[in-house]
């Protein structure tokens, strides 16, 4: 594997694996996703939790069962054995998620209109690319997806909203995401996805993992309602 990794302790019970490579590498999210699964499978007796992110993996382990040095070499072996080629070839079709783009569910569409981008253009530019999930966090099932077209990149709101409705489709910088549940949030909201994205009683609980490919499909108001969408209007 071509990836350079460094592993350093962050606390008594946690270490951070950092992936560094000089050029942008499209397969990094798939490698991080695969490494997460491999580490859970192979080092289950020593590891409590694995938190993958954009270019790193945090590992919570049990220092009374394994020393840092031994664990580090086990992790290195595990990651080296990941076959990068098999990852790219096993990629399936992107997961399609329906999105209703409308001012009723996307108050920040206004910001784009102020910049001279019409709703129709916004829909086209946002729903065209295939995005890659590069991190999951902030809230359960909240997936950071890359890359948002430069025309649509906006910074986070200077004052976050106290409530963003469930299903809100959002943009911050070069990331887009869907709020799986109502929560406070500072991203720019442009639409709503009526699909459940965090169900603790389902397997899988969330329909994507790091490295997953996502595509948004624009839907009209009737389809939105028929898929269970609601217009709560509870932005605050």
């Amino acid at each position, binding site marked *: 594997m071509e990836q350079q990794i460094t592993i*350093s*302790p*962050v*606390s*008594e*019970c*946690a270490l*951070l694996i950092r992936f560094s490579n000089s050029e942008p590498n499209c397969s990094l999210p798939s490698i991080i996703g695969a490494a*997460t699964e491999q580490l*859970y499978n192979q080092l289950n007796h020593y590891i*409590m*939790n*694995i*938190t*993958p*992110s*954009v*270019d*790193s*993996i*945090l590992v*919570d382990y*049990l*220092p*009374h069962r394994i020393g*840092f040095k031994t664990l580090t070499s086990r992790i290195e072996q595990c990651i080296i054995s990941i076959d990068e080629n098999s990852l790219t070839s096993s990629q399936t079709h992107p997961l399609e998620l329906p999105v209703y783009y409308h001012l009723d569910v996307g108050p920040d569409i206004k910001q784009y209109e102020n910049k001279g981008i019409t709703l129709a253009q916004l829909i086209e530019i946002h729903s065209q690319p295939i995005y890659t999930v590069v*991190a*999951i*966090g*902030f*809230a*359960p*099932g*909240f997936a*950071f997806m890359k890359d948002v077209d430069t025309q649509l990149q906006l910074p986070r709101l200077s004052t976050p909203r106290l409530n963003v409705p469930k299903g809100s489709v959002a943009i911050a910088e070069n990331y887009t995401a869907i709020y799986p*549940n109502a*929560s406070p949030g500072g991203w720019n909201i442009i639409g709503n996805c009526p699909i459940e994205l*965090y169900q*603790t009683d389902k397997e899988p*609980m*969330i329909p994507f*993992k*790091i490295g997953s490919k996502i595509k948004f499909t624009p839907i009209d108001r009737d389809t939105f309602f028929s898929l269970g969408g609601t217009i709560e209007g509870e932005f605050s």
Partner: protein
Amino acid sequence: MNNAVLQIIKPGPLSLIQDLGRFGVAQFGITQGGPLDEYAYSWANFLLGNQANLPCIEITLRQAEFKVGAKNAFAICGADLRATLDDEPINNWSSFVANKGQTIKFSLPKNGLRCYLAVFGGFKIEPQLGSCASVERDSLGGLTDGTPLQEGDCLQYHSLLANQYFEPKQLSFRFQPDYNLPVTLRVVESYQRALLPNHLVNWFYQTEFEVSTNINRMGYRLHGPSIEMPTITMESEGIALGSIQLPPDGQPIILLNDRQTIGGYPKIGCVSRVDLPRLAQAKPGQKVCFVKGQLDELQSDWAMWANYFGY
């Protein structure tokens, strides 16, 4: 053993079912939860001879009241909330037998903030994703979807047999922390430490911070003199328990059990696991200082703790 219930007469401001936490699901953005004071939680189970991971009630602050449905042994450890059994004081850091119809009450804190109430054999709670730890934000744990205990809720446990003897225990005073003392926290330097200028690191170790009013199970925000933070651009990364974030205003935030799993603020390192309970029991206004810790030493302290309690 017969089924019995502990009825919640008053839950107080926040009473939560907690076990050691929810692991193996951080990759979905699900937080670990678990007792903020792992030391007190562990003693509560230990004094009853329970397994290390049995669900207890974490009682925060005051005015909680529980009615005992059938005879069993209980233990209280952690904050001193002036606990009583039928209005008779119960020693903190001890186990005791309570009979059918008796009431266990907690009132205003004398020392610390959070008290753990355990029962012999544990409360019978259906785990969600491998844990009973209540995390409302993740809709997981407790009796239903992470919600705190409500008035009228009933927690099941097995009662003692009529002729079963239980010997009450009291933890030696030497092992009982005084949570009201100023807090000194040892720090494992890590994460973005190498990117921070020396004057900032010196400031961090030389400042006496104060616990702000902005404290909860996600984290503790401290208050200190203002300082200019350098701009550090970084990707979001996994946040370990006890991580010390330095946001743009330089006021440290120490992230605890219900923290978000990833974040993009620079971190100077982590508060030692052994010292975290002291922070989690600190009240607004209490003084907090940081000292640099030695990883090897802290790790072996932690390993002793983990082995002793049987994690």
